[in-house]
């Protein structure tokens, strides 16, 4: 974590007299999953579009891997970055396979390699290649279209992914599935991801760090836990949501972190399937309610007992 992969340095963008992005400085480290949140019109998309030069800052600079992108050829820069556009924007006259192959074809990959890559990506995003390869975008459901959009962004194996509300307009279940898939892709590939959403739960679930924008200004840049425990101001607290704050708080800590480590003698071991240590506390609470118990065993990644989680531990802050 030496030099940031993406760095905004005092970036300002105006449209006429309206300041859409106002003096934002923000660093995204290599391999980091950074989520931009903020209400509609707060400048999230505009900030994102300045990374691949679809928008040019009026002041300040954007650096990618240390280089000021103002001096780079936009096309070459964009082919190194996956981009998932807010409104999907699949090419309606191209098949699913041709859509996904856009960047590899632009990069001049040999045909066989393109085909292989397209199939691999379709499988990664749970799109059966044999069924979907030859379909056109209008023949897909909204969720399938968004998967194709994500696959298209990943196709050139870019080190950086820019994703503008890639899972908007999906039902909660599909959204959850795609979110899990994306988290896995991130873990497996170690890509640097800049992700826009205005769904705070999505941000808390995915982010290494969250950047909160309000009317073009960066009001807080911190880990999910910090955002929850030490919101910079009332605006961030409102964004996190006052009502379910406690539950969201539970969502960013894991069972392993709160479990009482000393294993009780086997006779006092609480009954029931042990929880994995990386299960969010919110899920753990849900398990306790569902099973009607106030204590559950916890295991570590290798399946060894790692202590016991008590209901009382959940409210201890």
């Amino acid at each position, binding site marked *: 974590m030496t030099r940031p992969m993406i760095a905004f340095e005092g970036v300002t963008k105006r449209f006429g007299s309206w300041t859409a992005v106002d003096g934002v400085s923000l660093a995204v480290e290599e391999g980091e999953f950074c989520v931009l949140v903020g209400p509609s019109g707060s400048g999230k998309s505009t900030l994102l579009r300045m990374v691949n030069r679809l928008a040019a800052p009026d002041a300040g600079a954007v650096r990618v891997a240390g280089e000021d992108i103002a001096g780079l050829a936009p096309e070459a820069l*964009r082919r190194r970055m996956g981009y998932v556009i*807010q409104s999907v*924007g699949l090419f309606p006259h191209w098949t699913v396979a041709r859509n996904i192959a*856009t*960047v590899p074809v632009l990069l001049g990959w040999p045909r066989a390699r393109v085909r292989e890559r397209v199939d691999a990506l379709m499988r990664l995003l749970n799109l059966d290649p044999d069924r979907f390869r030859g379909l056109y975008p*209008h023949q897909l459901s909204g969720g399938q279209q968004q998967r194709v959009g994500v696959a*298209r962004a990943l196709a050139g194996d870019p080190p950086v992914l820019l994703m503008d509300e890639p899972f908007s307009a999906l039902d909660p279940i599909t959204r959850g599935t795609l979110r899990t898939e994306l988290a896995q892709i991130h873990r497996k590939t170690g890509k640097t991801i800049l992700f826009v959403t205005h769904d705070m739960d999505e941000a808390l679930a995915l982010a290494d760090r969250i950047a909160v924008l309000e009317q073009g200004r960066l009001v807080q840049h911190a880990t999910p836990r910090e955002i929850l425990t030490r919101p910079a101001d009332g605006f961030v607290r409102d964004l996190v949501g006052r009502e379910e704050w406690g539950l969201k708080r539970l969502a960013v800590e894991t069972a392993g972190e709160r479990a009482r480590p000393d294993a009780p003698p086997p006779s006092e071991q609480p009954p029931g399937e042990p929880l994995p240590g990386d299960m969010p506390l919110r899920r753990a609470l849900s398990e306790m309610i569902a099973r009607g118990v106030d204590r559950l065993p916890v295991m570590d990644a290798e399946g060894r007992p790692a202590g016991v989680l008590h209901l009382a531990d959940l409210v201890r802050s």
Partner: protein
Amino acid sequence: MIRNRVLFVLAAAIAVAALALPFLSFAPNRLLSGQGIALAAALEMPRGLALLAPGAVLLAVPFLRPSRGATAASVAAALLVGAGLLWLAGLHAAELAATAPPAARTSFGSGFWAMEAAALLAALDGARRLGLPAPGRIALGLATALLLAAPLAAGQLDQLSILKEYANRRDAFSDAVLRHGAIVAAALVPTLALGLPLGVLAQRRPTVGRLLFPVLNIVQTIPSIALFGLMLAPLSALSAAFPSLGIAGVGMAPAVIALTLYSLLPIVRNTAAGLDGVPEPVREAARGMGMTPAQLFLRVDVPLALPVLLAGFRITLVQAVGLAAVAALIGAGGLGAIMFQGLFANALDLVLLGAVPVILLALAADALLRLAEALLPLPGGRRAV
């Protein structure tokens, strides 16, 4: 009870025209006006059944419960009526010719034109109602063309006056057709060379569009004869000043220039409209994937705008085929020359010999380009209906 008013009106029109209007017209020579011959005279049995049977079906269908079968029957009947009228006209003309002096002429009468038009309209209306997919419509169109062309090709119409006019000037006729095509083709080259870039420019720079479209619209409102006339003065002046250019105030050059001016509007307008129809998110995605401006234009803009572009080209072509006929007035030649020759000589069949091929050429151009549009993969991989 009448279930299909359109078909009823057309069928009734055919019946009335059959009874009240002259089917053919017989004249001692080509310059005298003829004497009407009723359809009944040509309806000798049993060959008259070829017309009466489909005619009866056409009259009955409007009273049937609407169904695809009834509609298909009406289309078939209407086409048979159309073909039967031609065939009977040819047969009866041949019978009249057998006993008349060689200068005598048999022409189509007003009844023939009215019935033929109503029959073809009925076929067209029925075909629309059938809502056939592209291959079906193409097949139906070809079948119609074959059905109507068959008596012509078989020489059964040779004794009709229009074909006698043709026989008298076979060579001049084929020259005129070629010349007509040459005028249209010569106008399309500058039209596309200017119109496509202007359309792109008008779409990208709204100011250009705001200046250009009113001008092109005004050009369209100038009557064609006036525009052809307007070309005469400047081109004559030009040729007087630079005789070496080989441009004349009359003939091909002014015709091509005037046709180009007319043709620009549909091309420019449809080019701009087609590009306007490319969704902005799609262009943004293309840019975001790293397409260069040229790649964006050729791989995204053009294919997505192509259906609208082709429609513009079709309108232009059909319009140019028709307008090129008027260009004969300023000495450009073509089928229009035959038409005007007939008009000035008061020989109606000569007028028809010029006019009918113009109509057929325009219809053929329209059908061919619609076929191209139908076979084109549209945005989203669908094909045109």
